[in-house]
């Protein structure tokens, strides 16, 4: 039977763990709210740019612009968005596994697959599997800004135009709710117009009479990179929201478990205390009996 002192120490430790997990849950909840707000703010812009691209891409020859041209995929870039910290349930392992599975499935069909990673957890995962990583973007997640997302976007777009890659895929978690994050693969280059993407209620499509200033190609030059940037920015925000949601859920259950454990240990503590008292009492009475004799 453990000593009272040991149990007391255990109780203190479980209590403080519970406090930490509760604090982590609250922090994650606050950060989640902020990420969601930014997603909401981004929505009108993302909708307008997305619709415009879909409309323009549909109406034009895919060869009209390098970013629209579909080349046979020989060299692929995978962008994997993970987090810097763990303790977020299956958040990191889901997206890492998705990227890993894709990598295994397509290794034979591609000349070259490069990985670029956001977040230390993704880097560690690939390192543990001896997978070479082309680049790890540092400090993106500490303070996520549009400029950082655009920086990645510009780099990727330039590499694509230079012919370093024939396609660029994005692996990240889409935020559904605090308990549901969906690992998703999205192709960001070449840009493909998806049917049914255009919401006509939001924006009337540019008609045949629309003037392009200075030219259609010049407008595409501006618009297409904008679209790449906005997709990366949105994916980063979704990823951060998912991370916080996953952490919130994980820390909530950890706090609950700590509570249950505390209850069990407290009962054990009281039982031990009681049995010690009982033993002492019986010793005293038997001592008194012995004196009487």
């Amino acid at each position, binding site marked *: 039977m453990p000593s009272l002192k040991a149990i007391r120490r255990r109780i203190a430790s479980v209590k403080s763990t519970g406090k930490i997990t509760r604090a982590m849950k609250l922090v994650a909840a606050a950060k989640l709210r902020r990420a969601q707000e930014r997603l909401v703010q981004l929505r009108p812009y993302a909708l307008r740019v997305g619709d415009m691209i879909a409309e323009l891409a549909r109406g034009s020859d895919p060869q009209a612009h390098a970013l629209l041209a579909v080349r046979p995929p020989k060299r692929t870039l995978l962008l994997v968005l993970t987090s810097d910290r763990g303790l977020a349930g299956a958040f990191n392992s889901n997206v890492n596994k998705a990227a890993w599975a894709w990598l295994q499935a397509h290794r034979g069909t591609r000349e070259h697959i490069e990985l670029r990673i956001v977040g230390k957890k993704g880097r560690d995962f690939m390192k543990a599997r001896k997978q070479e990583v082309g680049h790890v973007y540092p400090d993106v997640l500490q303070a996520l800004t549009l400029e950082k997302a655009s920086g990645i976007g*510009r780099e990727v777009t330039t590499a694509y135009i230079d012919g370093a890659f024939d396609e660029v895929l994005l692996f990240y978690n889409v935020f559904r709710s605090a308990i549901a994050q969906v690992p998703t693969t999205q192709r960001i280059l070449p840009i493909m117009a998806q049917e049914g993407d255009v919401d006509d209620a939001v924006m009337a499509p*540019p008609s045949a009479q629309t003037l392009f200033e200075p030219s259609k190609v010049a407008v595409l030059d501006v618009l297409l990179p904008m679209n790449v940037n906005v997709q990366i920015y949105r994916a980063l925000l979704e990823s951060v929201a998912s991370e916080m949601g996953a952490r919130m859920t994980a820390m909530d259950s950890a706090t609950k478990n700590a509570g249950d454990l505390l209850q069990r240990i407290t009962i054990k503590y009281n039982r031990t205390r009681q049995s010690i008292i009982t033993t002492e009492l019986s010793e005293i009475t038997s001592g008194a009996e012995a004196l009487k004799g």
Partner: protein
Amino acid sequence: MKVEIVTPVGVKFAGEASQIVAPGLLGDLGILANHEPILAGLRTGVCTVHVPGNEPQPLVVDGGYLHVTEAGQVTIATELCEAWQEVNVDAARAALETATIALLGSKDATTSQAWQAKKHDVDLAETRIRVAGARP
């Protein structure tokens, strides 16, 4: 005419305006009501929104596009849009200095991405200072 300026950090302006002067790729574009449908690329520069009954509002705009629909609705989508109140003049002056030095010292071809990026930094800092100086 109805005007909307959207950025990734939110809707910057939504409402009625009588005139807009936007920095087009080849030169400034003046947009009045009943402008014909147009889709124009924008450069980094000053965009002025004239709201009836108010002083014209100068805004920093960093690229993007301007779209006038057939219905006459104007949409500007840009990655960055700042009013003069939001411009940090000291930071912009410092940025202009470092960016100018970087641009003048650059050995890249003027058509290269690297040179364009440096030129963009100079333009953005200049535009910020101009907008801050143009406060009503």
